């Protein structure tokens, strides 16, 4: 693998999964692990049935229901369509012999939380899922990307996908992260710098001492939002932190193969002098706690900033876009971010629904109360995250502060289940998208880190964690 010209991590994974280079310039790439959920798979299974095809390698697929599931009273899903969709996934997985984590299974949770948690996600793998946030798994040095339902069907039938290689982009962040600045702030800052189309056609590799010093969970937050920068996937070279995280997890290589796997993983990081089509270097001291003010993840400013003025836009399109966002968000130019009053707090999602996130929130709200006018909801990323939090007594702290403590799922990140914002309700959210209507029609989303969301819940308006006591 280390022969020839210097290669990036992406180049190495690509080369190692190439089944066939076809005459038309496309490649057939082998997929090691396919994650399936209830929303983007029914039509794929239906397609297999219509064409009388079978699932080629059921053991390479794991399924779970997450998008649609209620976070309370889930024994019987009230919404008929949601219930049918979840039941359809259960039926399809049984029919094809695919492993399925039932709703009643402690391991159920958001597909991108449970992959890493179970040790399903491993360095050097190719992984796909009918969900754009599949990029999360890149934190392990796995090439992981979201696909459409037709491609889900293709992977089920052939265990491969038709691709052309992406371009390589490296974003290096150097230096220790300043107090109050988390990996969420780092990725929001990056999206603000390069824009939501900045990574189009590229796989972004995150490097540098700031990134290397982060825990696996913090790395996952960064890779998760690569898609918000337009990149197909995010990648971080695997290292000792990665290997330590994986060891002993249920689906990780067992003792029998551990040494061989470790040897393979150790050779994956990008070679020195490898070529990148685009490079960006960031000094960690540039980064403040970040908050979105608009309806695109690139609409981001420092928590110490103000709501922008459309007339300051460089292009006519951008000006129109700011005006549209401000109207939707019900904000005036020049308003201080820390003066924005909130109605709801949502803590959860595949971006920030892991145990470290909940610990950080609990540490901030301990012995404090949510502001009177604020409602807060915490949705752990998986049943096991919930169990862990309860074993540590975090649920008590969070409930005493006034948060609702829910069952695992995607919940208000996209509001497919009953957890939604009402029109004009303003929410501090640890999720990944602030699109119009994303969390409920007319709902207004401000993306931020769990730390900022926690402090804001107590203050009742957006808070700067660095000034919070």
């Amino acid at each position, binding site marked *: 693998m280390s022969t020839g010209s210097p290669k990036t991590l992406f180049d190495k994974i690509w080369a190692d999964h190439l089944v066939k280079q076809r005459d*038309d310039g496309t490649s*057939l790439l082998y997929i090691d692990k396919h994650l399936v959920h209830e929303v983007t798979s029914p039509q794929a299974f239906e397609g297999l049935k219509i064409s009388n095809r079978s699932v080629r390698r059921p053991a390479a697929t794991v399924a779970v229901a997450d998008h649609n599931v209620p976070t309370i009273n889930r024994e019987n899903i009230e919404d008929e369509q*949601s219930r049918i969709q979840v039941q359809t996934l259960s039926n399809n997985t049984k029919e094809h012999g695919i492993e399925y984590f039932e709703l009643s299974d402690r391991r159920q949770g958001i597909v991108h939380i449970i992959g890493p948690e179970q040790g399903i996600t491993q360095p050097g793998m190719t992984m796909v899922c009918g969900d754009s946030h599949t990029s999360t798994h890149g934190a392990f040095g796995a090439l992981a990307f979201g696909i*459409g339902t037709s491609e889900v069907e293709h992977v089920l*039938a052939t265990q491969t996908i038709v691709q052309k290689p992406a371009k390589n982009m490296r974003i290096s962040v150097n230096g220790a992260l300043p107090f109050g600045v988390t990996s969420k702030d780092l990725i929001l800052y990056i999206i603000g710098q390069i824009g939501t189309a900045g990574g189009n056609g590229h796989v972004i590799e995150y490097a540098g001492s700031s990134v290397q010093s982060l825990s696996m969970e913090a790395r996952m937050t960064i890779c998760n939002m690569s898609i918000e920068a337009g990149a*197909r996937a995010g990648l971080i070279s695997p290292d000792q932190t990665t290997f330590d995280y994986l060891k002993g997890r249920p689906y990780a290589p067992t003792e029998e193969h551990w040494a061989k796997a470790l040897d393979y993983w150790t050779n994956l990081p990008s070679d020195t002098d490898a070529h990148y089509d685009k490079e960006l270097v960031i000094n960690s001291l540039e980064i403040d706690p970040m908050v979105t003010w608009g309806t695109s993840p690139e609409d981001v400013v420092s928590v110490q900033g103000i709501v922008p003025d459309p007339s300051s836009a460089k292009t006519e399109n951008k000006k129109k876009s700011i005006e549209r966002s401000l109207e939707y968000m019900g904000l005036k130019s020049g308003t201080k971010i820390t003066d924005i009053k909130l109605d709801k707090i949502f803590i959860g999602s595949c971006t920030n629904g892991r145990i470290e996130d909940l610990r950080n929130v609990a540490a901030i709200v301990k012995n404090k109360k949510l502001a009177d006018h604020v409602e807060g909801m915490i949705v752990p990323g998986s049943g096991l995250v919930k169990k862990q939090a309860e074993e540590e007594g975090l649920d008590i702290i969070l409930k005493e502060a006034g948060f609702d403590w829910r069952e695992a799922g995607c919940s208000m990140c996209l509001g497919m289940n009953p957890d939604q914002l009402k029109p004009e309700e303003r929410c501090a959210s640890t999720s990944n998208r602030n699109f119009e209507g994303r969390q409920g029609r007319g709902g207004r989303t401000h993306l931020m880190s769990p730390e900022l969301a926690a402090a804001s819940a107590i203050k009742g308006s957006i808070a700067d964690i660095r000034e919070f006591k």
Partner: protein
Amino acid sequence: MDKFITLKGVAAPLPIVNIDTDMIIPKQFLKTIKRTGLGISLFYEMRYDHQGQAIKSFILNTDPFNHSKILVAGDNFGCGSSREHAPWSLKDFGISCIISTSFADIFYNNCFQNGILPIVVSPENSKKLMSLASNQKEFEIDLPSQKIIVDRETINFEIEEYRKKRLLEGLDDISMTMNYEQSITDYEYIQKKNKPWLFKDIK
């Protein structure tokens, strides 16, 4: 899959940047287990008010654009979620060609799985086409010659050869890949030796 060869008709202008897949088809319509019937919900929140009544000023609710087969949209069309419900809803509405300065990767890919042609044009041409669309000029899209013809003006566009071929012939990816079954099996056999921990189910 449906073929795409040529297309003629008025094009609906939608000069908004970063139109995401949540705007194209909101979450409540993702609960379906079918591919069809989504056209009526396309651009739901821009197209209908809170009571579900059509908003008359929205472009796709006005004649003749309510029959548009072509959409001219702002930069970075289709960003966000991977939901194929987005191209399904466009197609079900009747739109099978989208023109923009750029598309998000997954959406772009999903279009070709559904017989939809996404065309990338320069910002200058986008501006020109947006204005011609607003003036209800008839657009002619010719995939074989890679041309947009409107109001005696011709704009050439680029498309990767393999994508063009698939649209022109309506080819199905899965049956094409099935021809490589032996290569896939050979790959698995070799990789089981290299990475035994990943191929325990393969004998």
